[in-house]
């Protein structure tokens, strides 16, 4: 009896994928020589990628290797500068999100794109139903369909629950149900397991196996190489926007994969000076922040030392910095500044303790584009340029002028708006703001992201100077050459905690990546 029920469900799922049986095409997707640049930065350079029916083709690469950009092009969110895309044997001259969806391409992102105020059933129906805006909605049918789809994945999500009340993995499951319901022939999964438990991952793999049986092609993006070994048929490695290799998954070892992903020489020369580190400026012990997933982080950084923090996007590096800086106060663990245990509940406390933080997205959090260089530079140290509660503009200008000179900020005067400066110069202003508070510890999150090569070298030189002056610097970076070139020690984060700390001579790109991917510790 039970068995019969099962079969009924399977029969239904067969009927759900009519294309794969009627079309003799096995090459579902054929993208050739795709190139794409953003504001002069080359994100993809002649990338080729194909996908067959019933295949799981993994796409791997470091942060910024071009995976996301490629996916955006396939889903029609971005238009390539050059290259061709053929879906099911037919070339598609123009791809936008609608066309992409109509061609049977569905993407499941890490961050679900659902309607938080609507129910699960409505969310699933919303992108599946066709018809005029004035059609009646059959809410019972919507609910049935949602239950059916969810059941096929083996998910226990209430179709009547509001999405806002679901956990992240539950929301992801809803996204997968949506793609299933859309009869997608090409399913893109971008880090689908990032927020899933082991049991949920197994279930997901069951779903993927079933998709594959029905001739669906899956593009699988993940940093978890063991998952890729378990699920993928072929693997394509992207590095710096180029296709490095496409290999059958069975033919490539994990070590080789890591080598292919990293595989580059240190292209920049880093001006490393030998500085004898002083006393410990900042130490954290078992720092935990349950809300952001950072847990059991312990490290110390000495005066005159640059501690690099490596890790993949999502490993908790920024969250760690925000915890130390008091933006999201820790709920367990210790922070020790200059030998004294302290509690940091707010950024103003952190600043008072001599900790500075230059955030990753400087446009959003670091500086005010509409304000002058002088006003930005003095924002964290207004007391130093104020007299009797009033800002002394002359003192402010003098101070800003001093930093502008020292940092070689290229601007006609300190009165110009920061928004008119280049990215590199903006970053220097963000640095100047913190230096004006003379912090003992400076945390820099991606200090050279989106900065031109010249400014990058200048910022690096500046960091070395500051360290030589006795400042302790914590540098978060996704760029391995920068991490390797600048750091005295390198802490590698994975899944919310520091897995390993390398000494300067001890680390190389492959070792760091292996730890960041969670393979070694």
């Amino acid at each position, binding site marked *: 009896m039970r068995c019969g029920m099962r079969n009924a469900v399977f029969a239904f799922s067969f009927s759900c994928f009519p294309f794969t049986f009627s079309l003799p095409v096995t090459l579902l997707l054929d993208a050739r020589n795709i190139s794409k*640049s*953003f504001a002069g*930065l*080359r*994100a993809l350079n002649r990338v080729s990628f194909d996908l067959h029916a019933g295949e799981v083709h993994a796409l791997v690469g470091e*942060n*910024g290797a*071009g*995976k*996301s*950009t490629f996916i955006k092009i396939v889903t029609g969110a971005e238009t390539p500068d050059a290259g061709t895309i053929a879906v099911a044997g037919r070339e598609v001259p123009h791809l936008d*999100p*609608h066309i992409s*969806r109509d061609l049977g391409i569905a993407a499941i*992102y*890490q*961050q679900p*794109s*659902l*309607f*938080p*105020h*609507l129910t699960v059933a*409505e969310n699933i129906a*919303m*992108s599946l*139903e066709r*018809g*005029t*805006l*004035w*059609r*009646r*909605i059959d*809410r019972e049918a919507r609910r049935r369909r949602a239950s059916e789809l969810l059941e096929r994945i083996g998910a226990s999500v209430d179709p009547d629950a*509001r999405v*806002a*009340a*679901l*956990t*992240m*993995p539950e929301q992801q499951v809803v996204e997968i149900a949506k793609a299933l319901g859309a009869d997608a022939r090409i399913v893109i999964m*971008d*880090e689908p397991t*990032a*927020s899933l438990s082991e049991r949920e991952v197994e279930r997901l793999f069951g779903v993927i196996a079933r998709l594959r049986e029905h001739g669906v092609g899956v593009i699988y993006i993940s940093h978890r190489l063991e998952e890729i070994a378990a699920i993928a048929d072929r693997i394509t490695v992207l590095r710096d*926007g180029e296709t490095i290799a496409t290999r059958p998954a069975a033919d490539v070892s994990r070590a080789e994969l890591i080598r292919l992903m990293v595989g580059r020489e240190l292209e920049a020369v880093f001006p490393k000076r030998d500085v004898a580190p002083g006393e410990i400026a900042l130490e954290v012990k078992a720092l935990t922040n*349950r*809300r*952001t*997933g950072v*847990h059991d982080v312990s490290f110390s950084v000495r005066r005159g030392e640059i501690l690099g923090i490596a890790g993949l*996007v*999502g490993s908790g590096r*920024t969250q760690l910095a925000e915890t130390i800086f008091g933006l999201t106060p820790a709920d367990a663990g210790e922070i020790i500044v200059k030998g004294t245990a302290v509690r940091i509940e707010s950024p103003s406390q952190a600043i008072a303790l001599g900790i500075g933080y230059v955030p990753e997205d400087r446009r959003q959090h670091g500086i005010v584009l509409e304000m002058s260089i002088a006003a930005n530079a003095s924002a964290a140290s207004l007391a130093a340029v104020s007299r009797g509660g009033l800002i002394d503009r002359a003192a402010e200008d003098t101070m800003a002028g001093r930093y502008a000179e020292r940092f070689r900020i290229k601007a006609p005067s300190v009165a110009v708006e920061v928004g008119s400066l280049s990215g590199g110069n903006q970053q220097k202003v963000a640095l100047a703001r913190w230096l004006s508070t003379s912090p003992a510890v400076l945390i820099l999150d991606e200090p050279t*992201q989106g900065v031109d090569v010249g400014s990058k070298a200048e910022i690096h030189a500046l960091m070395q100077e500051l360290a030589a002056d006795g400042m302790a610097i914590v540098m978060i970076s*996704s760029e391995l050459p920068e991490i390797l070139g600048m750091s005295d020690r390198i802490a590698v984060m994975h*899944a*919310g905690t520091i897995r390993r700390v390398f000494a300067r001579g001890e680390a190389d790109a492959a070792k760091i990546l292996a730890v960041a991917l969670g393979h070694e510790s």
Partner: protein
Amino acid sequence: MQRHRREITLALVIAALAVVLAAIAPGYFARENLGDLFLANMPVLVAAIGMTLVILTGNIDISVGSMFAICSVVAGVVAKMSGSVALAGLAACATGAALGGLNGSLVAYLRMPSIVVTLATMVALRDALRWWTEGAWVQDLPRGFQWFGLPQAAYPVVACASVIVLQSITAWIMRSVAAGRAVYATGSNEDAARLAGFNTARVKLAVFVVAGAFTGIAALLNSVRFNQIPSNAGIGLEMKVIAAAIVGGAAIRGGEGSFTGTLLGVVLLGAIGPALTFLGVSAYWERALQGAIILAAVGIDAVRERRSLHAAIPAAGRSTPLRAGPA
């Protein structure tokens, strides 16, 4: 049960108020008083239904008061010229829709923030009307205009019936027709709505147009109560209407709100003022109390949202989205 928490809470508060009034000041339920209350708040309800639509998309329209005044004057002038109430109603509706369309297209296609757009049109329309009427009221209305030419006792019945129809149709469309879901979707997550194939700009324009038309209907329902039409009608109407929608559970950021909730919001906020008078409390407290009700409603939302947010974040291993562009 959980879904309709706001409506149930409001109904209970209204019921409690009714019980207190019945015990202390039964005169409140005199036919005359209730009738007055009803007639005075019916236009507010009609405008509030339109406002709820706008708020559902995450926008706001603070120019309703000025639109209301223009529609009232237009209704009066057309009634005088044509002698037809139907034509007057149509003109009021069309004027409201056109003004709503102006607001809506600025919001939807020029992507201007609705609060700024409608603040500007609120001021501009009010002064345009002053210039046009030179402050004069519309008088000497045709005989058939007041009470729609109905006997005074019959008018409330007809008006009530039409408001019920209006409310039910809107609520039904919003719940059971795809277009209604498009409004909720746009307010809940605009990017996702666009990906789901909705033309979100058109949705936004549409809610402003419909809200404008509703304001026109509200203006007509209000104007026929008197034998002349003031050129400064509807001052402060926007606050009443927005307050009712918010007390009724509409989330100011969009995506959430119900029409039953808005109805109950209008009832509660409309009933509370006269109730104070009947209970012997100074009428000066009316606004303070209304403000307190709004704060209470929004406060409950804020607390609830914080709780559900905490529940939604898993303890560990949460990922940030991949960086956009060539990171």
